[in-house]
């Protein structure tokens, strides 16, 4: 493998090196100072994230099975930022005594899934794509069961592995039909051979359903809430932001490059599923008491909004999807960061527990409010801009009805986000969560999230940079 090739798949290679060094480090590390391995791993990952932003080489490897382009590198960088935030947020939790025996595993598993996602995003061939998606899924199941002595966590792991096995089966079935009718697994070849053959359409529907499981699009969302609730908070945030983002990234690439011929078909599919996803996600979120379940349903509905960017098949659509996921990473990780901080300090995870939070912990409440407003799309934070562009992208292709349904859905979502705001600011409580000061990593990660939420919107340069790398059908 020459240096040029190495540079093309720089992201993956670096991650593999990182995963291995974390693994090897444990052997040589002083067992008494095991906790410092956390710092080592986080710093290592920070370096990788920064290297990821250096100018990249475009090109393809392995006879076109692996493709690297500006768009895909951008997507990987966005994921890297998200993972870095998740890692920083997990520091407090990892330092707990109960986790001291499995710190390396945490980093190893997280980085492995990220390697899988990177391969998935860079795929130019359905096999690589499939390997990537499996590598991205299976370690997450282990992570979901990280607190394996807690019943709920173990249950979450099993639920995740079973449902993703099912979805992978469906996905593979779809891929086999696509292979059977086109005679190739290369994206380029498939795109050329694809027609309106009904078996091919069926293959596409199976493929889409498989992806819908990963993104938790209704009606394939049923695993989401239980898994999110059972997993440790940091894993939940990883699942809801990074996994979902990566799956959406590759979905948009495949839809735009492999299946442009049957655009009319996938537009209808997305039209129906996005309405279902937004509405059902929102309606179920209203009734939730546990904040993790609450954010699970909220993230289901967010996926529904993101589908609006896919539907037009336009360049603006791709831009707005990538931009929205970037914004979503900061907003959702902001919300999860607060939940994690409070959960680590007090073990409380219910909305009622947050009553009167503003009077004891004003800063955390403000960050939570900012994050929730960003998720709801309230100006002047970034979520407003993100949603506006998603809706603009759909309206550009004339989907005004869909946009109207989506905006009305944001009103429903505003209702339940405001319920949390109400709990924190308005409702009085007999025994509110006591005043506490979270440690440096938590505050640092939350600070980055707030900066991201605020700056992303106003700085049009980010949006324009993403646009220059996006493409339409």
């Amino acid at each position, binding site marked *: 493998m020459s240096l040029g090739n190495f540079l093309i798949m720089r992201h993956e290679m670096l991650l593999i090196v990182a995963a291995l060094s974390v693994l090897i480090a444990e052997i040589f590390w002083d067992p008494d100072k095991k906790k410092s391995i956390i710092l080592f791993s986080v710093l290592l990952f920070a370096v990788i994230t920064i290297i990821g932003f250096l100018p990249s080489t475009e090109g393809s490897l392995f006879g076109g099975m692996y493709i690297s382009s500006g768009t895909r590198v951008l997507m990987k960088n966005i994921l890297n930022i998200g993972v870095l935030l998740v890692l920083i947020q997990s520091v407090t939790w990892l330092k707990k005594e109960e986790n001291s025996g499995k710190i390396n595993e945490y980093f190893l598993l997280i980085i492995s899934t990220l390697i899988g996602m990177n391969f998935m995003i860079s795929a130019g061939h359905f096999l690589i794509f499939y390997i990537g998606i499996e590598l991205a899924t299976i370690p997450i199941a282990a992570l979901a069961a990280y607190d394996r002595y807690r019943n709920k966590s173990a249950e979450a792991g099993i639920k995740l592995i079973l449902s993703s096995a099912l979805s992978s089966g469906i996905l593979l079935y779809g891929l086999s039909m696509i292979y059977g009718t086109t005679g190739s697994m290369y994206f380029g070849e498939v795109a050329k051979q694809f027609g309106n053959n009904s078996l091919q359409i069926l293959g596409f529907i199976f493929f889409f359903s498989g992806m819908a499981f990963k993104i938790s699009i209704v009606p394939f969302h049923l695993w989401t809430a239980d898994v999110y609730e059972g997993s440790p908070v940091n894993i939940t945030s990883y699942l809801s932001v990074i996994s979902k983002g990566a799956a959406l990234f590759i979905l948009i690439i495949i839809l735009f490059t492999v299946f442009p011929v049957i655009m009319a078909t996938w537009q209808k599919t997305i039209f129906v599923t996005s309405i279902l996803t937004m509405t059902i996600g929102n309606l179920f979120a209203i009734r939730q008491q546990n904040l993790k379940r609450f954010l699970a349903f909220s993230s289901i509905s967010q996926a529904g909004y993101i589908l609006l960017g896919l539907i037009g098949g336009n360049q*603006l659509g791709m*831009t707005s999807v990538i931009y929205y996921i970037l914004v979503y990473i900061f907003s959702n990780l902001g919300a999860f960061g607060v939940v994690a901080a409070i959960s680590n300090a007090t073990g409380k995870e219910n909305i009622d527990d947050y009553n009167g939070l503003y009077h004891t912990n004003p800063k955390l409440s403000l960050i939570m409010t900012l994050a929730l*407003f960003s998720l709801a799309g*309230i*100006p*002047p934070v970034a979520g*407003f801009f993100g949603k*506006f*562009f998603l*809706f*603009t992208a759909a*309206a*550009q292709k004339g989907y*005004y009805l869909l*946009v*109207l349904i989506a*905006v*009305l859905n*944001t*009103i429903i979502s*505003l*209702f339940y986000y*405001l319920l949390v*705001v*109400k709990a924190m*600011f*308005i409702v009085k409580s007999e025994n509110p969560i006591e005043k506490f000061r979270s440690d440096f990593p938590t505050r640092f990660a939350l600070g980055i999230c707030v900066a991201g939420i605020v700056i992303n919107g106003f700085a*049009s340069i980010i*949006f*324009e940079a993403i*646009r220059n790398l996006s493409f339409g059908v």
Partner: protein
Amino acid sequence: MDILSLFVVIPVLTITAILLLKDTKQVRMVSAFGMGLQLLMAASLVFLYLSARHAGNTDEMLFVKDHLWFKSLNIHYTVGVDGISVAMISLTSLVVFAGIFASWEVEFLRKEFFVSLILLATGVFGFFISIDLFTMFLFYELAVIPMYLLIGIWGTGPKEYSAMKLTLMLMGGSALLLVGLLGIYFNSSPDRSRLTFNILEISKIIIPLPAQRLFFPLTFIGFGVLGALFPFHTWSPDGHASAPTAVSMLHAGVLMKLGGYGAFRVAIFLMPQAAHELSWIFIILTSISVVYGAFGAIAQKDLKYINAYSSVSHCGLVLFAVLMMNQTAMNGAIIQMISHGLMTALFFALIGMLYGRTHTRMINEMGGLMKIIPFLSVCYVIAGLASLGLPGLSGFVAEMTIFVGAFQHPELFFRIVTVLVVSSIVITAVYILRVIAILLLGPTTNEHFEHLPDAKWFEKISVVTLIGSVAAIGLAPFWLSTMIGASLHPIIEKILALNPF
């Protein structure tokens, strides 16, 4: 830094200053200073505007500044004002200034209260200076959202319910509005080569009629929700009744005007043909607002509810007049917005002050207050007389102009409706005079009220500012109506060119 952007920058700086303060006692001084500065800015803006017009500048918008923001979507940050926006900005700064003094005695979370209040004002100022639909929409939503906390935390009565209802309904309105704005945007260039959100540029082209028919109702209702258009007005009584004094003032006085202003500047100005075609539907709805609001006010016993319904009635009149689409009626609509803004802010300020003394807002529990607190009572009478349209005060000028203009409409249907709507004047007189009679005159019913203190200095500042403005408009309406009329002229020209009667 251009003069218009300062209207957003000053509130933001004030908020920053408040947040940096350690001592909560200084918060209100800083707020008063910031908003006082804003009031001076507004006065100098009026002066600059009039002198620029006097010097022969006939551009549609003055002090235009344009910054490209999102290049690929051609979204700009564009500010500019004409006579109408100058008038609205002056109104806003007056009401906010008075509102700061009316909430001088807020104790609970004082810092947060003033931050939210000024944030709301920032949104309103930003809305009035924008001529780009995107920034306009951004500021519009920014103005709505602090309401939730303001009512939810500092309100009274069923505050959580009211706050949620108000926020969701107003956001529902902005949902319709967003679709309408996107529709305008994608029809803003005939060959889609240069789409724009700039109102002035869009007004130069004619949006295709089918698109107008689709997006006019969305935009108009979207703004209409905020302007208390029947049947979307139900947030208003609950919201106003639960809100703390300054918030009611700002909300009824200024925020509801966003609806009227937007309906006129965006919906009707950009889509005049559909507005003309569909005006009969909305005329019916607004007439219901006017008459039903007035009757609703008669039936209420709570002072704030009375005033909230009266606001529904008066704001309905604004939309009613705007839909008549002729120079006189529209002129009246703008004056009505200003007049109602000042008058209702005055009302809510006084109600807040009464409530702070008597701890009740039920009219039948009070009586004979004129003897005990003469200053506040006389002010209340003045506000009432302005509300029922007594000559010499602003309400008369506004309503007179509106009805004269509305009756000029060539179609019989519109004239008949006008006649029906005029009846609201009588109904208004009924509830205003009834309240004055029960509340202020007659014997004192409750002995606890006999030693109530009259207005304090900060309350006097608040009230006198507003009364002075109401009287100024009533006594010398011509400088205002000339300023508005000159700016209305090009708009009316465009409407008439497309809709020959």
